[in-house]
């Protein structure tokens, strides 16, 4: 029976589907869908569920400690520095400065660094500085890259803690005090990552997909890795750091991927890094799939560059070796890098051995889709549980869009990722990225950073 005539009959399709499933033994079933059962189900779904069901009760148990931490924080009232580096971000700054005024924790300063903007950013920001809405505005007429801009701000930061945020994001009113609390719970904590959620969820299909993705990979994903002690990234869009530690490691290194990089450097010093899902930052995400592809291309390459090249020492036994750091890197490399290529292997194997005809392929594909749809549904439910009070109405509407998520992650993101890894491995493409000024890329390439 051909695929064409099958599509004419939905009944026929389900008949063949159940027939196909019935014909498989349990072992055969596992063999046919090994990527899901062996890897995704265990690493993501089961682990997430297990940890979250530990996290939520723990959070309730921790209430007393949190209360004490909050009292200590307000008794000490340390100055906190908001640090906002960026190029051509002037248009976002007035709103950002305005929104920071709403913070429940008031003792902070705002430092904005203009990294060689060629628009009217400096005019806008200088005016805000005069109006005292920005505490310090530093204009660098020559672009030096995001790391250099953040380091410039660090030079003049006076706060005990530094909170790095993106210009085009905004914080929930209690984000600052919430992100500071972990420092008062455990003095070995060197940095705290804040939750990043999508601000423009309903702008387009792309943003809806990202909203679901962020809730899984950041809100749930980082809470899980944080609990396991293997959190590997604190995003630049929302992260709090102890200033003394940042100064000890002399701030950020040349990017891209500087967020993950600085997190690892802090871990190497023996400090803990944690994720705080209740400190919320809303960020604007790309509205077009083409823009999104470009963004991900850049992000994905940094995995190769930083994990495999720069911090390869984490994988080798040495003095600074720590098991958690080893697992952090390995987990990242294995699940992102190696598993990315597993799909192509799976597909190839199916073509050679598994499928007799195109109908079988379609059936296998359908079952895979069903599995991934189901796991996304569960994962998103976990995310909603985790959100608790901060759950918004729009979160419910997104349940419908989970239908499309398997295509988004399975096809769109995977293609971009494969392309990025290949390009970076073969050509070190990130050294030629416009993200850094050419002068910096040239040195980085020469030094093999």
């Amino acid at each position: 029976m051909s695929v064409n005539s099958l599509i004419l009959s939905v009944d026929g399709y389900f008949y063949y589907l159940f027939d196909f499933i019935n014909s498989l033994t349990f072992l055969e079933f596992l063999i046919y869908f090994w990527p899901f059962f062996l890897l995704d189900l265990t690493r993501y779904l089961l682990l997430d569920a297990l940890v979250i069901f530990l996290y939520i009760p723990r959070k309730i148990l921790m209430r007393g400690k949190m209360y004490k931490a909050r009292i200590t924080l307000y008794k000490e009232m340390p100055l906190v520095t908001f640090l906002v580096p960026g190029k051509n971000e002037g248009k976002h700054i007035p709103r950002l400065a305005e929104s920071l005024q709403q913070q429940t924790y008031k003792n902070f300063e705002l430092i904005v660094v203009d990294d060689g903007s060629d628009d009217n950013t400096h005019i806008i920001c200088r005016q805000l500085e005069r109006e005292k809405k920005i505490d310090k505005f530093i204009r660098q007429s020559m672009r030096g890259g995001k790391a250099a801009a953040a380091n410039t701000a660090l030079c003049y930061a006076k706060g005990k803690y530094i909170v790095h945020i993106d210009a085009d994001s905004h914080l929930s009113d209690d984000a600052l005090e919430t992100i500071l609390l972990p420092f008062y719970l455990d003095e070995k904590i060197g940095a705290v990552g804040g939750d990043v959620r999508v601000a423009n969820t309903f702008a387009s299909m792309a943003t809806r997909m990202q909203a679901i993705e962020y809730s899984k990979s950041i809100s749930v994903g980082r809470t899980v890795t944080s609990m396991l002690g293997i959190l590997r990234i604190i995003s630049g869009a929302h992260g709090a750091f102890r200033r003394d530690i940042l100064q000890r490691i002399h701030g950020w290194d040349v990017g891209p991927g500087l967020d993950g990089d600085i997190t690892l450097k802090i871990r190497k010093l023996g400090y803990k890094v944690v994720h705080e899902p209740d400190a919320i930052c809303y960020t604007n995400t790309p509205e077009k799939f083409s823009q999104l592809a470009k963004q991900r291309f850049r992000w994905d390459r940094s995995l190769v560059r930083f994990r495999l090249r720069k911090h390869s020492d984490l994988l080798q036994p040495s003095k600074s070796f720590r098991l958690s750091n080893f697992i952090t890197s390995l987990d990242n490399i294995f699940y992102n890098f190696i598993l990315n290529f597993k799909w192509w292997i799976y597909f190839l194997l199916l073509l050679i051995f598994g499928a007799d005809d195109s109908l079988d392929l379609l059936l296998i594909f359908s079952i895979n889709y069903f599995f991934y749809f189901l796991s996304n549904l569960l994962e998103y439910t976990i995310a909603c549980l985790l959100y608790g009070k901060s759950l918004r109405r729009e979160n419910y509407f997104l349940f419908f869009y989970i239908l499309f998520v398997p295509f988004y992650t399975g096809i769109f993101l995977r293609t971009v990722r494969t392309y990025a890894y290949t390009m970076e491995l073969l050509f070190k493409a990130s050294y030629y990225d416009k993200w850094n000024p050419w002068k910096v890329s040239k040195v980085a390439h020469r030094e093999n950073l």
Partner: protein
Amino acid sequence: MRQPYLVTDRLDEVTNVGFALHVSIDKIHELDRSAQVGFWLIEANVSVQQAQHCLNIIRQQLIPNIYLRPIVFLSLNHESDAEIKLSGCDAVLYQNKEIDTQIATLISKFENTNQWIDKLPNRHQDSETNQILRTLRLIVSRNHEIAPVITAHSVSGFIYPLLETVTQGNDSSFFNILDFLETQKLIIGNFISHCHLCCQCHCAFLNFKEICPQCQSEDINSEELIHHFKCAHVAKKSAFQQKDSLYCPKCDRELKHIGVDYDKPSVINHCNRCAADFQEAEIITECFNCHNSAAPEDQINRKIKAYRATAIGANAAMFGLDNLFTKIISSKVKFFTEAQFKQFLEIEIERIKRYQLSTSSLGLIKFIDIEKIYLQQGEKSIHFFEELSTIFKSILRLSDVVSTQDQSLFMIILTETSKENSLKAMKRIIEGLSVLLSENMHYTGSIPYEIEEINSETNLDQSLEQFVKKHVG
């Protein structure tokens, strides 16, 4: 044949025997009208200052035939050239060279100027008090571009030597005269430079100072930031400095070539009083003359130009500026000449006498000196006159007849209007004028006016005489 006239301030001390024609400075206005003056020669050997004093007296004379003539300084050598350049004289005669050839050259050089002066109507009358006209005439008579000279000897930082004597160093009214002449297209200015002037005293000597935006202290240092490309480290230059070279405190590398392995993205200021770090220092200007401090944008930023007369300017210089104000105001209100006005008045008197049906009124208003407006308002006087016209236009009817004498006394025939109603109209005009004057010129004095009914006994000349006697004194 024109001759140089040696001007002396003490006749008995004349030592320059070579010059047969001489005149004492205090008798200069009595010089015979037929004298063929090629230029005034002033002895500047003993003291340029003294010669300058003499020059000022000549240029302040009221007789065009005297103050407009070229002035030449007599000097022994080039020693005092710099000083002479600022004096406003038209040329220098050097005593140590062939004097006769020099004189002949100068006479022919000034021939055009002298011929132009000779053509002036009323050039022997000592009535030329209008500073605007004097300025314009000096510019036109010289027939070349009048360029500014930058100097520390003048408070405004630059002078137009030829024109200095007109306002006797009152810079603000001098600027206003130039601006007015330019907006009237009587002269055109060629941009030379910009100059910041004190908003209080027009002094060009301003001290531009960088101060701390937080505590206004002047005690600030600035330091460059260095960005090391390799490791993205950014810090003050002093943090990199080790002996004579730069070493990165983050990665221990030596920084070698600016632009290749490092650069200096910005400069940061540090306040030594309040310890604030800031990138943009506030700038404040302090006047060396009156010690007034102000932000640079609050000081006057003046364009300095070289001026040249236009064809209209040349015409106005020859025949006077009398019609200038009337020209502006008559674009809105129809103005009649004094003669026409008299004719209308006679017709109106006849009409009333004959029909005995209606009453009309004659109104007189004495207005503030127009020249004062030019001097105080400069280029803004145009707007002032336009507003003035609007006031007249809004209150008078088309059938009313308006004229002006000396551009300061207005005469109005209010046809078919009783004395009472005319008084009302007049009061409204006065009200409008008072507001305009107090807002623009801070003039709060009263504006005299008079209304009379037109009848067979009306006599304009008599009424004017009485009015002037009563209100102007």
